[in-house]
């Protein structure tokens, strides 16, 4: 099918980050519903359907007749608590207001439901070295963004870097808990020796950050967060893939 909307990017194949995101999602029995947004070319939505979900695909690109046309910068056109699963792969970095988007994802997922989100991992070692040398984060250099007129429905490129910590902060505001972190593949393996420096020193430094604010949050939750941020997925992964649960009694891995 010819591409109808040339102003929006998408992957026209089933990618490695889709494969790894799929691993975080349990099989469904046909009664569970899922929303994939932005749906891109629809490959991930198709994979969710094969996993047993009743899938709704939404994207502003209108590439397929089974899509719903929706703008991720605005209110999503779905009722509250409509889906057991909501997936948002490689979308949030294109959005003007990540806080608003995550709020919308949290609104349309059911209590106890799952959100799986992926974005370029701006906390990996490549990104840290890039920031040191150039001041730009991984996949968020000026070349990754496009100048647009505000209000025009056009993909601006990568304009909103979202780190694990920022995502976690926003998620908490919407009663979401990060339960798992994964990646698709390593970025710049030549930087692996940096692990010998960053891991022990970083954990030592972070330990002070964990113990510092006892009045703000329980230490166990912060320790879980630092287990995630010192994982190989975050330190070296190309894509940050995060699974979140809405509400209480979420199982954390």
């Amino acid at each position, binding site marked *: 099918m010819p591409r109808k909307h040339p102003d929006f990017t998408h992957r026209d194949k089933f990618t490695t980050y889709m494969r790894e995101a799929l691993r975080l999602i349990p099989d469904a029995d046909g009664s569970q519903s899922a929303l994939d947004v932005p749906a891109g070319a629809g490959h991930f939505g198709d994979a969710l359907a094969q996993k047993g979900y009743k899938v709704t695909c939404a994207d502003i690109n209108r590439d397929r007749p089974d*899509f*719903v046309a929706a703008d991720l910068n605005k209110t999503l056109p779905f009722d509250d608590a409509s889906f057991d699963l909501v997936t948002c792969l490689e979308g949030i970095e294109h959005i003007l207001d990540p806080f608003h988007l995550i709020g919308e994802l949290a609104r349309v997922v059911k209590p106890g439901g799952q959100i799986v989100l992926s974005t370029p991992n701006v906390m990996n070692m490549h990104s840290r070295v890039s920031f040191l040398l150039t001041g730009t984060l991984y996949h968020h250099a000026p070349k990754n963004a496009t100048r647009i007129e505000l209000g025009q429905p056009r993909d601006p490129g990568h304009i909103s870097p979202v780190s694990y910590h920022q995502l976690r902060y926003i998620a908490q505001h919407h009663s979401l808990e990060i339960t798992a972190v994964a990646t698709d593949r390593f970025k710049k393996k030549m930087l692996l020796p940096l692990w010998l420096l960053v891991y022990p020193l970083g954990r030592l430094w972070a330990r002070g950050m964990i113990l510092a604010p006892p009045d703000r949050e329980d230490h166990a939750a912060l320790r879980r967060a630092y287990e995630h941020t010192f994982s190989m997925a975050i330190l070296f992964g190309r894509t940050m893939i995060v699974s979140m649960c809405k509400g209480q009694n979420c199982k954390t891995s």
Partner: protein
Amino acid sequence: MNQPVITTKPQQNQIDPEMLKILVCPLTRSELKQQGDELVGSVGGLRYPIREGIPILLVDEAKLPQGINSLDEFRQKFADQIPD
């Protein structure tokens, strides 16, 4: 292996009733009802087109109700029914 489940009818502009239950107007978050080739918001009556089976739920492409000349005017008139 299960076949992909398509929740809208791709060949015509008839929206699946199950799908319609979860669709809302992206401005007022009110339910939508199908009238011909359009989905109409129950609050305010914004009319969203259905093109080639795809509900175009973009506020900028919605038709305004009679007597209202702009989205700003719509927002003002229905301000108390538009969620934050």
